[in-house]
């Protein structure tokens, strides 16, 4: 299922905040039809990397490629134009509005200068159906009446409604119960099956093993490993990568030279 050429690639990204060198020559790739999990301890540089990719932080050095072409990212708008969408942990939904209104917020469809509700409602239903989301009673339900998992689903649907090609999900299951986590992970998997490049940032190793095709583990600002994984991967393998930067013959050669980042 893994395609040969990445849809999004970051090469040699360095980023410092004052004297603190947060990212060291980081390479990161997202393949279409693939779930890539970005894992690492707190402070390993996951968030900084994502913010560099999405144009929120300008990197000190580094090149970005989209569809194999070198691109210049100067702000979040450029990134959105490529079809890269981010679902942040706080979801950014308006609870007082319904699902349709949230999905089309800021990009409402108009007819004769007025809101074209029937068309937006249909498109919302189609999008949710294409994601096999079957847990909402009505697309006219207010977000305030939805469960945490349903809200996450709406936030993800909002990101893919615009024919986006890469979706970055920041801890999508962090606040969810067992059944809801499963719903969201199923959805993550389906996004990839539809050909999107999916990046999952997660602290939950079970989630990572369940849905990922690749794992990119960061350790003290460096990429410790960027490897394909299977459903049979051991949890301990990932935990070791996160906590010590290497596991068996995978990972950074030694961890002693990385301490400068602290």
């Amino acid at each position, binding site marked *: 299922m893994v395609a040969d050429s990445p849809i999004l690639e970051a090469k040699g990204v360095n980023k410092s905040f004052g004297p603190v060198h947060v990212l060291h020559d980081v390479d990161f790739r997202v393949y279409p039809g693939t779930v890539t999990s970005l894992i690492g301890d707190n402070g390993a540089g996951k968030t900084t990397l994502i913010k560099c990719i999405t144009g929120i932080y300008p990197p000190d050095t580094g090149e970005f490629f989209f569809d194999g072409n070198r691109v210049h990212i100067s702000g979040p708008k450029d990134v959105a134009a490529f079809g890269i969408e981010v679902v942040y942990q*706080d*979801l*950014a*939904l*308006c*609870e*007082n*509005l319904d699902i349709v*209104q*949230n999905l089309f*917020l*800021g*990009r*409402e469809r*108009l007819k004769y*200068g*007025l*809101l074209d*509700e*029937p068309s937006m*409602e249909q498109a919302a*239903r189609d999008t*949710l*159906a294409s994601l*096999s989301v*079957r*847990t*909402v*009673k*009505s*697309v*006219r339900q207010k977000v*305030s*009446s939805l*469960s945490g998992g*349903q809200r996450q689903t709406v936030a993800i649907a909002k990101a893919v409604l615009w024919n986006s090609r890469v979706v970055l999900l920041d801890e999508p299951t962090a606040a969810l119960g067992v*059944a*809801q986590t*499963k*719903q969201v*992970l*199923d959805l993550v*998997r*389906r996004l990839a*099956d*539809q050909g999107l490049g999916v990046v999952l940032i997660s602290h939950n190793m079970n989630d990572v093993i*369940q*849905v990922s095709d690749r794992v990119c583990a960061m350790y003290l600002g460096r990429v410790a490993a960027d490897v394909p994984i299977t*459903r049979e991967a051991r949890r301990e393998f990932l935990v070791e990568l996160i906590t010590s930067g290497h596991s068996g013959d995978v990972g950074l050669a030694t961890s002693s030279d990385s301490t400068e980042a602290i």
Partner: protein
Amino acid sequence: MTTTLPTPAASDGPNEALSDFALDGASKSFGSAFGDMKSRLRNGELGSLPAVLAIIVLVTIFGLSSDTFLTALNFANFLEQAAAVIVIAMAVTFVLLLGEIDLAAGYTAGVAAAVLALRLQADWPLPLAILMSALVAMALGLWTGALVAKLGIPSFVVTLANFLVFQGILLILVKSGGSIRIENDIVKGIVGSSISPGLSWVIGILGIVGFGALQFRQAERTGVPLSMVAVKTGAAAVLILVVVSVLNRNRAFANAVAEQRGMPYVIPLVLVIVLILSFVLNRTRYGRHLMAVGGNQEAARRAGINVVRIRLSAFMFCGLLAGIGGSFLASRVNSVDPNTGGNDTLLLAVGAAVIGGTSLFGGQGRMVNAILGGLVLALIPNGLTLVGKREPFGWELDLGSSGVKFICAGLALMLAASVDALSRKRTS
């Protein structure tokens, strides 16, 4: 679509039992539509129900305890009293929807009324005088909006300061102790004159047809059954017919020279305003963005909505509507004085919006709420005045005194704010 995951049957939570957009498209039975209403109420979405109940209760109590309360004269008088507060309440609704407040809306109305009266006194043609008054009101709103949206000062503080500033402007315009008379017949007639009985019937029937059409349109979209539409439209029709027939009765005093019949002009005016504003809020992109900013400012910003512009414009529209309310205030007494828009005007307006079901926390509310809440708050002083002196437990109490009226209106507002806070607790 295949997944690579082993998929045991998902165990959905109880509130997710209905799935697959089961409730979309399918037309519902009368019972299930009624059930929807009940479950919305249970979830704390009371909307305007408390206001409707309050109107029924108040009318019953006052009707039973006063002979004059349920007369045509008092009915028309009561609607004329309510009109200005209702329009200023709609003004405040604009900023309440954003979770902001405008404490200076009352004096914005006063200043706008003074400008209108002064321009008319200077023999400006009426349209120009109205335009000038509207521009001044919008400018005052923009000034408030700029301080709130651009500088980020809390609207409570900005409008508290403007409460004084605008009061000062009004005092300077009117000159303390004086008042500006309004001689223009059209402005005097907004609240003072009535439409002919024949035309009143036409307007009433147009109202019924319009209401029915709106309900039907909405029902088509949301799957509410036609029986529900028929019940609602029927109820509205009865209400409107009763209102028009009462207003069309002669309400002049017994020894008056001329008869006084028909619907006061201010009623269709208020209805047109509420229709336009509801249309803007529900059917335009601007209205949608306004609700979004009120619901979650950060989400709105990330969706590419210009939050500053929305906030600025909301305060500007608030100013404009307050100005229109000001002309109603002036029309009622045919003059503008330093207290026009002062006293309890602002508090009644905010109270009307909140009693009608508009949230103080932003994002929740409708323009119609202002009408319902405004009627409740106008009923209280009107009814109390007519009930007058009573002797509960041998203790003489004048229910018509300002003290009692203030206390009752204040308690009503407090009750509405409690309902708002509680329902918010319940939904989150």
